[in-house]
């Protein structure tokens, strides 16, 4: 499975299903990192008559690691995850999955997914939610990288008995 960088471009869905999935996953990667406040704005974009296909709920996902980092999988421990699924009056369905117990966040993420699939409000979705979100995440990531990089160290080996 390829991974999508949060800073990577988010292609518009093309004809192929693969392209659509790639683009859709990129949107999901953004919403999974969004704060509750950042996602809340999507409610202003949603039409009336949204149906909860799956009422927001919280459960567990077992996180797996690999033995030695690269070997066979093992069960490391669980994480709380909230999920929801919604259907717009147009019939477009959206899914939301986020770490944590905030069910509102999961439903808002599902709304973003549904609106993105529907496509008719994609410009507002992009301008009001996704672009600012991507910019904020990129800023945070850049700051964090710079802070961590300042602690890069060069050790020198001292040779015993050297002049």
């Amino acid at each position, binding site marked *: *499975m390829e991974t999508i960088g949060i800073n990577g471009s988010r292609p518009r869905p093309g004809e192929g299903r693969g392209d659509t999935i790639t683009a859709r996953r990129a949107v999901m990667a953004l919403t999974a990192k969004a704060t509750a406040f950042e996602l809340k704005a999507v409610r202003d974009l949603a039409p009336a008559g949204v149906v909860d296909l799956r009422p927001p709920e919280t459960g567990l*996902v077992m*996180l797996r*690691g690999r033995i030695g980092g690269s*070997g066979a999988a093992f*069960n490391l*421990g669980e994480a709380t995850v909230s999920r929801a699924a919604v259907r717009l009056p147009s019939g477009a369905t959206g899914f939301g999955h986020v770490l944590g117990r905030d069910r509102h966040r999961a439903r808002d993420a599902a709304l973003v997914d549904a609106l993105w699939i529907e496509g008719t409000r994609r410009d507002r979705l992009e301008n009001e939610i996704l672009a600012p979100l991507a910019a904020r995440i990129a800023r945070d990531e850049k700051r964090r990288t710079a802070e961590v990089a300042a602690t*890069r160290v060069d050790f020198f080996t001292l040779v015993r008995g050297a002049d």
Partner: protein
Amino acid sequence: MYVSVKGGEKAIRAAHRLLAHRRRGDRAVPEVAADQIREQLTLAVDRVMNEGSLYDRDLAALAIKQARGDLIEAAFLVRAYRTTLPRFGCSTPLDTAAMSVDRRISATYKDLPGGQILGPTFDYTHRLIDFALMADSETPLPEREREPGPAAASAMPRVTDLLGDEGLIEAEPAAADGAEPGDLTRAPLRVPAARDLRLQQLARGDEGFLLALGYSTQRGYGSTHPFAGEIRIGEVEVEFEVPELGFVVPLGSVALSECQMINQFAGSAEIEPTFTRGYGLAFGQVERKVMAMALVDRALRTEELGGEATHPAQDQEFVLSHADNVQATGFVEHLKLPHYVDFQAELALVRQLRREHTAARAARDAQSDDVYEEAAQ
């Protein structure tokens, strides 16, 4: 065996109210909020997430507050909470090679691709109490590298992969096709256990217990000649396959610590001399935990590498049965619950034994008196 008791409701209610009052402490001091614990006691939160075996920073922080800072009690609360939730499924295996690192060090290579990054560490501090933290002083912002260079994970290969490329370290075998890893939350742990189950138990095991066991191997109770090949701490993306969607969705990222311990191995009749591995992986920034875990993981592999398990850290039954502090505290602390009937039985038995003992001694004394008297005659 303890027995049920009735009554005491009023006293229990009062005890819990007193507990809440003592938890609050001096009411002249501001109450600590769960988000303050989450943000400022992060390493305690990390420990509770591991030993509670549930990644949820907010929940662990709240549990620490509720438990008055008793981290084992907090882990117990988290474990109890997790039993109330349904399981949606399992993540795809986390890719620690693609970690966005906060810290990455190696004790085996001075110059390694990607470099050494100290990150937020207690190492090289002087361990002097900092009284400045008592004052309302502003914490300075961290320094920033103007040109941080590539942060890409490809620039930071695993140290074990570097050795693997030369064939000097054992390869980590992939799972047999379609083989699901064991899960000790679904089936009781039995020994001997495969390495996947052992790692699951160690990941949720008590840090103090693992530390002591790891230390015991260093002091000679089953030495493994370890080097800390690499320790990396940072964020890893979580992905989860959603059957309704038919593809893998990103869930966000989690903080992980990973330790690759490289150990000497002289080889055996079948195996060439090579380096062997001990592995540690856990939630959050828990360097001590993953180092100890890696030492114990390697020690538990003694028999599979042709050695004889003669020391505690090498003994699966000993290590795996006693690593879980929630289980351990349950059994140790149950001793304070009512054992009145049991004890009455013991009491009656001891009284009877003493009576018999006294009677036997009296009979013996009488007999020896007879002998003495006979001898005197």
